[in-house]
């Protein structure tokens, strides 16, 4: 029975030219979106490679210079002495802390074009380092990216609705429904069969096209962690699709003409995908505004001023700014003045920390409240799920930031140690490295599962409603 319906539906759909147009448009969009994502990932990887190359070259240069200085017993300004731990920690030995894109990052650009993915680690104040950013054109950030996530979130539902809005109404309007239903087949089975075929069609198209595009875009499908993420992605696309299928069937169950269904579904899409997210966005930022960075800057300045005022003498402060202008025993002055600077730096950090902590706490609280509102729109939930799966979401980035902060601590204490020992570096092999600890697939899956469950629950409810309403479908009149 179901087989018959499926076969017949396939024949009907494939004979309809507009269906092929829809498929072609979809295919084009998926291909373009995925390739776009892949290109962005390539750009990130190039930037990372360039950074690491710069670091390697610099290290090479300085190591060679150390050998030369030692051999020639040359005098060199403390400022640029590659053996001076202060200079090394502050500039000469700077290392990059990098957030590598996941193998499937091409699936969604997410927040990765806005949030920094590498930092240059030095002994500078944490806030100075962490405020770095990419140089993207703000108009481009505003426009958003035409990536696969965009296609899935915006276009995929529209196309589902375009093929499903008249799943019953067209048969009723063309008159074949009565003949079909005078056979021993229930309306539910008929609808289920039609929807099932469309669902399979879409999933097949999306899966196949996305995989092809990923391969063309240079993604290594065999790398570790790829298969589970791709599987999650497929599940996400399936769940999101089912939501829209359920909505279409629920609207169809009312028995209104095709044109009415189309308008109703277009309206639902508009509200859930376009209106609600931007409305929620502006409500959230108005009712729960982000704590002011500007106030944070001011508070930090005040704290820093206080710490500095207690610190060194005027002279030492002066030398702090321009050690090359110091006279006398350069080495001795250097060491004392390094120590003083370290002391002052620590004091500044100590006073500034509560300000920063308060800011971070407020920010996290605000983001949490806003996060709760996302259940109102499947589009927002889908965005979250896709970002989590491709590793371009805020959660993974927050993890990166935490690791960078502890790396900063590590870096600082390493160099402070050396400075206090008045040691001299002979090579850079021991300098702390950064390696991002990727989240486990389980962690990613559980986060994505929450978003997907939030889509699945209303889907089930809507489907149940549709199931019961179909019984009252007005076959005549």
């Amino acid at each position, binding site marked *: 029975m179901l087989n018959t319906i499926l076969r017949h539906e396939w024949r009907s759909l494939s004979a309809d030219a507009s269906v092929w147009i829809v498929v072609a448009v979809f295919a084009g969009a998926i291909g373009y979106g995925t390739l776009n994502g892949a290109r962005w990932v390539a750009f990130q990887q190039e930037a990372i490679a360039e950074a690491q190359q710069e670091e390697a070259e610099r290290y090479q240069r300085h190591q060679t210079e150390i050998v030369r200085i030692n051999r020639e017993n040359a005098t060199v300004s403390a400022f640029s002495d590659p053996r001076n731990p202060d200079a090394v920690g502050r500039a000469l030995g700077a290392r990059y802390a990098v957030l590598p894109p996941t193998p499937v990052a091409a699936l969604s650009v997410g927040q990765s074009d806005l949030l920094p993915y590498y930092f240059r680690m030095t002994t500078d104040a944490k806030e100075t380092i962490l405020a770095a950013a990419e*140089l993207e054109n703000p108009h481009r950030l505003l426009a958003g990216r035409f990536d696969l996530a965009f296609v899935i979130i915006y276009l995929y539902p529209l196309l589902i609705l375009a093929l499903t809005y008249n799943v019953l109404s067209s048969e009723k309007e063309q008159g074949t429904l009565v003949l079909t239903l005078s056979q021993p087949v229930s309306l539910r089975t008929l609808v289920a069969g039609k929807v099932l075929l469309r669902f399979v069609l879409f999933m097949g198209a999306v899966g196949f096209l996305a995989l092809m595009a990923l391969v063309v875009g240079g993604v290594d499908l065999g790398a570790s962690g790829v298969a589970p993420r791709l599987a999650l992605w497929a599940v996400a696309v399936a769940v999101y699709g089912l939501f829209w299928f359920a909505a279409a069937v629920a609207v169809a169950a009312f028995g209104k003409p095709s044109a009415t269904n189309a308008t109703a579904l277009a309206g639902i899409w508009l509200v859930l995908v376009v209106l609600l997210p931007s409305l929620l966005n502006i409500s959230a930022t108005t009712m729960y505004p982000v704590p002011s960075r500007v106030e944070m800057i001011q508070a930090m300045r005040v704290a820093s001023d206080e710490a500095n005022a207690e610190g060194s003498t005027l002279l030492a402060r002066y030398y702090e700014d321009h050690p090359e202008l110091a006279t006398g025993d350069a080495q001795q002055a250097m060491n004392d003045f390094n120590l003083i600077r370290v002391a002052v730096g620590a004091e500044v950090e100590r006073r500034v920390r509560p300000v920063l902590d308060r800011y971070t706490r407020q920010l996290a609280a605000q983001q949490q409240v806003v996060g709760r509102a996302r259940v109102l729109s499947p589009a927002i939930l889908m965005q979250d799920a896709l970002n989590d799966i491709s590793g371009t979401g805020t959660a993974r980035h927050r993890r990166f930031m935490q690791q960078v902060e502890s790396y900063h601590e590590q870096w600082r204490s390493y160099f402070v140690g050396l400075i206090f020992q008045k040691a001299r570096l002979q090579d850079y092999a021991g300098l702390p490295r950064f390696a991002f600890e990727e989240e486990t697939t389980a962690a990613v899956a559980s986060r994505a599962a929450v978003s997907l469950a939030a889509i699945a629950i209303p889907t089930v409810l809507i489907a149940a409603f549709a199931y019961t309403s179909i019984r009252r479908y007005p076959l005549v009149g």
Partner: protein
Amino acid sequence: MVMTIARKELREMLRDGRFRALAVTVFALSVVSFAAGWKHYTDVERQHLQAQEATRAQWLNQPAKNPHSAAHYGMYAFKPKSRLSLVDTGVDPYVGVAAWLEAHKQNEFRYRPAQDRTAIQRFGELTAAEGFLVILPLFIVLMSFATFAGEREQGTLRQLLGLGVARRDLVTGKAFGVAAALALVVVPATLVGVATLAFTSEFSGLRDDMPRAVLVAIVYLTFFATCVAICLGVSAWARTSRAALVVLLAFWFVNSLIVTRAAADLAAWLRPTPSAIEFQRGLERDLAAPEEMRLRLERRRQELMRQYNVQTMDAVPINFSGISLQEGEERANDVFDAHYGRLFETHEAQNRTLQWAGLAAPMIPVRSLSMALAGTDFAHHRDFVKAAESYRRGIQRVLNDDIARNSKPGVAYVAGPALWAKVPEFAYTLPSAGWALRQTAPSLLLLVAWCVASVWFASRATRRLAAD
């Protein structure tokens, strides 16, 4: 004749329950967006003004110290919020709000508001601009997609044409009718907008913003007229009202969602933005040129000795370290100008491509103009960055000049509040509306072109109107 038709259109629409529901919803959304915009503007503007005052106070209250220390302490520049940003926030969420003005470095503006928000931000904000650009055109589509096609399906079109109603009168009448119905929503919304603007007058300069406000209103009205013309044209040209609706919705979708993204991709492909690391490396490479610096300083020394007609540097009555610092600054400034200039040029070339993409979609020139007039596009940000940078250079000049004149080499020198006060307060005024329009001249041209083309399209489509 035209008025009769217009009146009938209006009456039909007012009686339609769906129109009433939609109109109320659209109006409510515009009120919400203006209210939210107002709150956001007042909060941020207050914060930034206070912060600007505070940073100035911190500067003036610096204890006695060497001027170069003060140069390193520096000041912050906080980006002011333009009043009309409550209509269109533009790229404000994506540009930094504060830059540290210190010696030797041109720092970037940091702390983009969008970085602190969740990913929902990328769906866009329901500002008044978004409402006018995205929601209102949809409203127009839903109101008018059936004006001709629906009448044709009902059979009344045949009767009208049979009566001898001229096609031109028909289209003009319907256009007026739709415009009147639209005005019922737009006029109250505009009044709310104007009232919101008036409420912000606690920060001075409302009168200066009037030209921009008026121009924004004109831009949007032109856009609405274009939308009405396109909708009527498509309704006349399409066979069925369903076809008209599909075409118009597809056009809306492509306009508001696809074209900007695709255009941004094209722009980036034509003129790629460098990565931060690439930029940084280039900057560092050009900044570090010890040999060049040495030669430059040597030349200066020679110049000075000639100027004071002396044989040795000791005889020169000026502290060379001040000169040296200033030379360092100026050389660095040249490098910064070259690199940042190139970077900003790249952005502006990309933005020009974005503007020309308006050939494909009428929404694009309107958005460009809206952002430009609201003072929230990249050109305005660049203008402020330039002003802040020139202020920073002014600070260095004052301080280095003081070191040159009043200090002696090898002797520790401190200056006090008298010197700090010599640095003027940072004052920035938004450029004129004319300047804003000059930056977006292509968009202006395209908007007018679209308006004319759509009116021509509507009249052509109705001229060939078939009764069935």
